[in-house]
């Protein structure tokens, strides 16, 4: 990948033919991908979506000893409040608070002042500068300010070139941060690269803490240490990266971009595996890693024990024919679908914020199902979901990021995995436990569903769900 010579990451649409608007069957989408020219669609009516800025902030929030400067009008920084208070209030941050005059006269002096202030006030080891739409449109010079102060303060100051409009899908924001981290923090291949440690790089981008803890537990069981990055990492984790045995993905959709870059820079292997969610995928993930190190027998022992207990746990559980609506990012969606089908669930429909060229294999599996599963691609866009849910009447709804009010309104119990650890073997217990509770006592969602919701027009609810998804005219 020579992407890293560039100022910032390519958008997902270009790199992976990512689609963020589609509703229909899996066959059509698969055919388009296979023909080599997937049609970009757009919505002629749309509801609000996340931009790369929120994705970027979410990732950066977990990195240690940092300060953040949001470079833009004050409003561009308020989602920081959410990450600050909901996850970690030790991250220091400021906004340049650009006003009309700054947007005309240029904003570099304010950026310089903001960086100076956070450096003086908090002595961070690392400063991130998050750019915003106004700065991007005005083409304000961020790099030269950063370069100048980097030298003066002798710490990394990393510009993250988010802009809110380049990509149609917010997840590009992860790539923008990852690009910046690799460009600025990963040391060039050193001469001491022969001093290999007994650890692997575990590439985590968006997972929650307990999920990573579970995966680390498994790897530790076979005597393997991990270097987790970039999530929950500090500067030392980046320095250590080059001494790893190899790198492994947690979520392949997110880990691929840095995974390949690290592999190319240091000449070692990047192992990309399906996300370890559910029993099969977890065992596969674990085995594949063990294989590389000739630790298969050790892993096998642990897998046998874990799956034995899980098998007993799942023994009397009956989920046959229960209909579930899945609204998750692709890696999670495909993994959880696989697991839920194994224990008897029927998938009534799938919604994902995006899909891309990496998912053809999984699409193929879905396309081979006897009953066609409708697939809706798009972040947010609850209006389309309501339209679909109205017709499908699922009994359970699994989502993340709380896009779920509408399922509550329809009287369907909801499982939100944003804070529920679902990875590894422990994740299976967590997920099953939640599913059982929701199905056992759905009284609150039933109670709420009596609330008459008049938001969407009858006219719309009677239309086909893909009415506002059209081919993009170039």
């Amino acid at each position, binding site marked *: 990948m020579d992407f890293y010579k560039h100022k910032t990451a390519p958008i997902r649409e270009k790199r992976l033919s990512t689609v963020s608007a589609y509703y229909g069957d899996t066959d059509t989408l698969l055919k388009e991908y296979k023909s080599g020219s997937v049609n970009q669609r757009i919505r002629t009516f749309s509801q609000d979506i996340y931009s790369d800025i929120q994705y970027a902030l979410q990732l950066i929030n977990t990195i240690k000893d940092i300060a953040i400067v949001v470079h833009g009008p004050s409003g561009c920084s308020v989602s920081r409040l959410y990450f600050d208070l909901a996850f970690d209030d030790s991250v220091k941050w400021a906004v340049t608070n650009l006003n009309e005059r700054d947007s005309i006269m240029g904003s570099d002096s304010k950026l310089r002042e903001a960086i100076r202030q956070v450096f003086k006030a908090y002595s961070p080891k690392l400063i991130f500068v998050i750019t915003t739409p106004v700065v991007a449109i005005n083409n304000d010079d961020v790099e030269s300010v950063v370069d100048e102060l980097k030298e003066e303060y002798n710490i990394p100051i990393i510009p993250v070139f988010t802009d809110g409009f380049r990509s149609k899908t917010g997840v590009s924001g992860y790539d923008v941060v990852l690009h910046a981290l690799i460009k600025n923090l990963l040391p060039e291949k050193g001469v001491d690269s022969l001093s290999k440690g007994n650890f692997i790089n575990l590439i985590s981008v968006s997972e929650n803490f307990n999920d990573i803890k579970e995966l680390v537990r498994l790897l530790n069981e076979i005597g393997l240490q991990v270097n987790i990055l970039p999530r929950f990492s500090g500067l030392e984790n980046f320095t250590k990266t080059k001494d790893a045995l190899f790198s492994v993905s947690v979520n392949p959709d997110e880990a691929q971009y840095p995974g390949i870059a690290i592999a190319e820079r240091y000449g070692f292997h990047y192992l990309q595996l399906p996300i370890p969610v559910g029993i099969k995928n977890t065992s596969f993930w674990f085995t594949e890693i063990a294989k590389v190190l000739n630790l298969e027998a050790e892993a096998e022992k642990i897998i046998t024990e874990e799956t034995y207990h899980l098998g007993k746990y799942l023994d009397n559980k009956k989920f046959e024919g229960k209909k579930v609506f899945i609204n998750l990012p692709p890696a999670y969606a495909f993994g959880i679908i696989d697991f839920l089908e194994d224990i008897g669930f029927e998938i009534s429909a799938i919604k994902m914020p995006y899909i891309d060229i990496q998912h053809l294999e999984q699409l193929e599996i879905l396309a081979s199902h006897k009953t066609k599963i409708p697939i809706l691609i798009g972040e947010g866009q609850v209006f389309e979901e309501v339209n679909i849910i109205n017709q499908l009447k699922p009994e359970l709804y699994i989502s993340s990021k709380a896009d779920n009010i*509408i399922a509550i309104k329809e009287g369907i119990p909801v499982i939100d995995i944003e804070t529920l650890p679902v990875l590894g073997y422990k994740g299976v217990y967590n997920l099953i436990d939640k599913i059982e509770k929701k199905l056992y006592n759905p009284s609150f969602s039933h109670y709420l569903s009596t609330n008459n919701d008049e938001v969407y027009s009858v006219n719309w609810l009677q239309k086909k769900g893909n009415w506002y998804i059209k081919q993009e005219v170039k």
Partner: protein
Amino acid sequence: MSQIIHKNRNGCALHGALKVMGAIEGIVPIVHASAGCSIQSRLSENTLSGKNGKYFKGWRETSSTNLTEKHVVFGGTARLREQIKNTVKVLNGDLYIVVTGCVPEVVGDDLQAMVKEAQEQDFPVFGLGTPGFKSNIYKGYEIAVSGIIDNLDLFYRNSDQEQQNFVNILGIIPNQDLFWEGNLSALEHIFEIIGLQTNKLFGLGQGIKEWQAIKNAQLNIVVSPWGINIARHLQEKYNIPYIDFGWLPTGEKDTSDLLRLVADKLGINNSEILIKIKKEEERLKYQLQKIAEHYYKYDFQKEAAIVGETSIATGIARFLKYTFGLIVKNVVITDNPGEEVQKHIIESLNEDTGTFTKVSFLDNGNEIDNLLLKSKPELILGSSLEQSVAKALCIPLLKISSPVYERIVLTRNYTGYNGAVTLIEDISEQILNTLQPEKLKKDYFKTLQFNSTNQVRLVSIN
């Protein structure tokens, strides 16, 4: 040059406008902006303002053009046309309002032309410019409220010009005021005491009809600096007088003052009303008398610092200082009111010659933290952002202003006579929670015994 803000707690004009529109039945905002703009508002609103976020009539998700690079280069006007046309088809509503973010403003999209086109098709649509780089959340509130008042006539004619027996409440910003819904109900309850109806404008059952009725009110009551311009505008346009009370009343002094002021202005100040007010005052005193024993036993008379917007911080500070006897050392006002208002707040928090209350006007989280750390209060009333300081000082924090993460607020409020009781209940819980349990004290002495052979170290117990 506008200042750099650390730990910024205030959104932009677009967010202020969306908060207004999210709390009125039948109003559907159409956001013309790049992706993320309305999510910024939603993230800070749903989770950080008592979690009672935009749930109104079910919609949280907002119609939005989500402008992309193409629109930045070639303009987004056509995209807006399409979005307006389809929003009226998908979302039920009585009034559709286009609000703009920074991108279309910089690019120069023709908002008014698109709105005019829609109006020609008889759709009830109008547009308001609310780019974040031009103004803040409080201005956004003003723009939205005056915008709705001024444009409503275009679509909904109201022949009835009779003045009726009610007042409008101006200055409460839904979801920026953590307790907005409770505060409005509390004010409604207070004015009932003197036989007045209240036009709340926001919340359950508040839609186009209530907004049409604004011009028939007898009086406007302004409870924050951000309602004054609207009140002046209504006076000029419809000849409605107003009372600028400045903040929300908490406790006997301010609530009774407000009631007497209103009664005076409306000429209903008779002995019967004075008796009713007296009765409410006695009820409040009865409740506060009940805790007197604990007030002294556990020393409730703390040195307090209060951080929040004018509307919430000033009234609470006055009650705690003038009635509850706290030593209110610092009040930090976070919504940047104008100079005149600032002077008024300082004066009303230093009416007696006794303890001096320092009033600061800051929105910079770092400066607020430093001020609190330096002044070392024993109790903070503020937002979740003050948590780190409260932790560092090992003192209780009662969350009364946005942003708040750890608290669910549905109908709770600290307004009026009853609100004062609720406030004291909440503060007491915070203070009692920090008392050292007897068990820990025993453990302390145990440690001392164990160490008795060594040099006894003095360990401070907090």
